[in-house]
């Protein structure tokens, strides 16, 4: 590890020596001493990790020297060490951004050590945040995030690009597994809000009675069990982006509350009175046809127009042609790399089979298929045999080979019996058929096991 370099500027060589001694007790520190501002400024281009300055220097003072340093290196930490305990000077210096103000007395050594430790912790956290931000923004570059060359996906890239340029709300629609949240993240991390939070809430995953406080927060004692104040996702996302997934599942009651928050650009936490100003960019997603929901009266029209903003429809995988193969190879390579396996090839039979399927679970399903194929293969290549289509989905029966009505009926009843633990009465009620019909089919072994 490189040493942490500290420059000491003090016109009193005796005191400078004392400071150097204290700091040099830490073997990680490399200390250089200067007795005047000029000799220090001549070496400033060496970019020390930290500078300590005596406030009273011949021909200048700590504030002037501090301003000079910050004009060249705006984030270089500076500690002023003064022979004078002067509260107003200390406050002025701290307001201007000096990291610490320490008086020369018996406690200087300990105060200086602690101040440097604090600054180093801060510096290391800042570095970590910068690295993570950089990684995030690279991770969310459109082309890295969403693979594909098909015209359908290129149209999506075009819309995402537009969404990053303006602060307009965005509504993403698409079947399950098409990557709605990834698109939302990519828009956020490529927009001018990228350094602010991205918060995501799935409306379908949170019970209705908890959703209001999840979104808007609550005050202590707002309801039984509210033992402390909770900040809602809207507040957490302030200045950033809030992604509301499955917005179509929101109850009418919460829809009106959401509408009010969006109109007023402020919220009141549940059980509270204080108004909290909001500056949140909203991205919503749903697998439903919201316009249809509005027509049915299940979704408020005024809220619909408020959130619809820039619509981005995500194409289902089956409409993306050769993107299927590109994605399949990408997932195969990724799985092999993550599991330290040799890269595998996709045989032409596997490619044909992949192109014939219609992927009701979209990209999520394709990824699961490729993970399994990588495991089932001979370790060198994936053939059609290892491509296992998902047979558990009820839709498969309708997209595959044509069957008779009797066969469809048997399949559906079998599916429901499995779902309801072979409770014939419940299944009969659900399907609105006589239970004797089910018993008869079971007796005649017409229902698949």
């Amino acid at each position, binding site marked *: 590890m490189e040493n942490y370099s500290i420059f000491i500027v003090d016109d009193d060589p005796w005191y400078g020596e004392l400071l150097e001694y204290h700091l040099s007790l830490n073997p990680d520190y490399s200390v250089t001493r200067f007795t005047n501002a000029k000799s220090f400024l001549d070496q400033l281009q060496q970019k020390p990790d930290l500078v300590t300055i005596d406030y009273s220097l*011949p021909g200048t003072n700590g504030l002037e020297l501090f301003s000079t340093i910050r004009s060249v290196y705006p984030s270089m930490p500076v500690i002023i060490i003064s022979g*004078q305990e002067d509260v107003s000077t200390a406050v002025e210096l701290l307001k201007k951004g000096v990291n610490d103000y320490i008086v020369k007395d018996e406690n200087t*050594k300990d105060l200086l050590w602690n101040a440097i430790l604090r600054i180093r912790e801060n510096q290391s956290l800042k570095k970590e945040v910068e690295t993570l931000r950089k990684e995030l923004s690279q991770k969310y570059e459109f082309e890295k995030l969403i693979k594909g060359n098909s015209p359908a996906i290129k149209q999506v890239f075009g819309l995402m690009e537009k969404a990053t340029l303006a602060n307009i709300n965005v509504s993403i629609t698409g079947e399950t597994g098409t990557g709605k949240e990834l698109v939302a993240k990519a828009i956020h991390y490529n927009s001018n809000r990228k350094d602010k939070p991205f918060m995501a809430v799935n409306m379908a995953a949170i019970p209705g009675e908890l959703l209001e406080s999840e979104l808007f927060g609550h005050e202590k004692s707002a309801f039984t069990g509210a033992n402390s104040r909770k900040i809602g996702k809207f507040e957490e996302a302030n200045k950033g982006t809030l992604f509301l997934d499955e917005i179509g599942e929101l109850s009418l009651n919460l829809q009106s509350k959401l509408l009010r928050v969006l109109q007023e650009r402020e919220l009141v936490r549940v059980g509270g009175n204080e108004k909290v100003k909001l500056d949140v960019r909203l991205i919503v997603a749903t697998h439903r046809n919201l316009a249809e929901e509005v027509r049915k009266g299940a979704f408020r029209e005024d809220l619909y127009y408020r959130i619809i903003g820039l619509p981005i429809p995500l194409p289902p995988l089956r409409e993306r042609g050769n993107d299927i193969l590109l994605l399949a190879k990408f997932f195969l390579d990724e799985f092999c790399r993550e599991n330290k396996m040799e890269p595998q090839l996709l045989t032409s039979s596997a490619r044909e089979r992949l192109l014939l399927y219609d992927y009701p679970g979209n990209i999520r399903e394709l990824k699961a298929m490729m993970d399994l194929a990588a495991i089932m293969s001979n370790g060198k290549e994936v053939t059609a045999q290892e491509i296992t289509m998902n047979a558990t989905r009820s839709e498969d029966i309708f997209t595959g080979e044509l069957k008779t009505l009797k066969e469809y009926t048997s399949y559906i009843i079998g599916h429901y019996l499995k779902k309801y633990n072979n409770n014939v009465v419940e299944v009969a009620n659900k399907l609105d058929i006589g239970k004797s019909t089910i018993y008869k089919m079971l007796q005649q072994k017409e229902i698949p096991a």
Partner: protein
Amino acid sequence: MNNQPSPLNYDLSRLIRLSSGNMEFVKKMMRLFLKQAPADIRELEMAATAGELQKAKELAHRMKPSVDNMGIESLYTVIRSIELYNSMDMTPEVYDEIQLTIGTIRQVIIQLEHDPLLID
């Protein structure tokens, strides 16, 4: 005639404490004081003679940490009084304080030169 040695005008206990008992470092700081202090009092003398109060105040400010850490207790108040003296001109009062400082530091220099720590 009194043959009793005059009491020491300095006390190294604070410096020893600050250096966590590192006597080599203490000796280094004593030598540094011996090297630096004559120049300081020469400058202080010149400022006093020339009536340059501001210069004297700046010197007092600079000398204060070494006066404190070398344990020159008799100057703790005096050096601060010079540093913070509220006047535009050199007054007889501050002039006397400067002379007291110069005299005391001269004595400290002589005593330090004979300190057993440095002689060993």
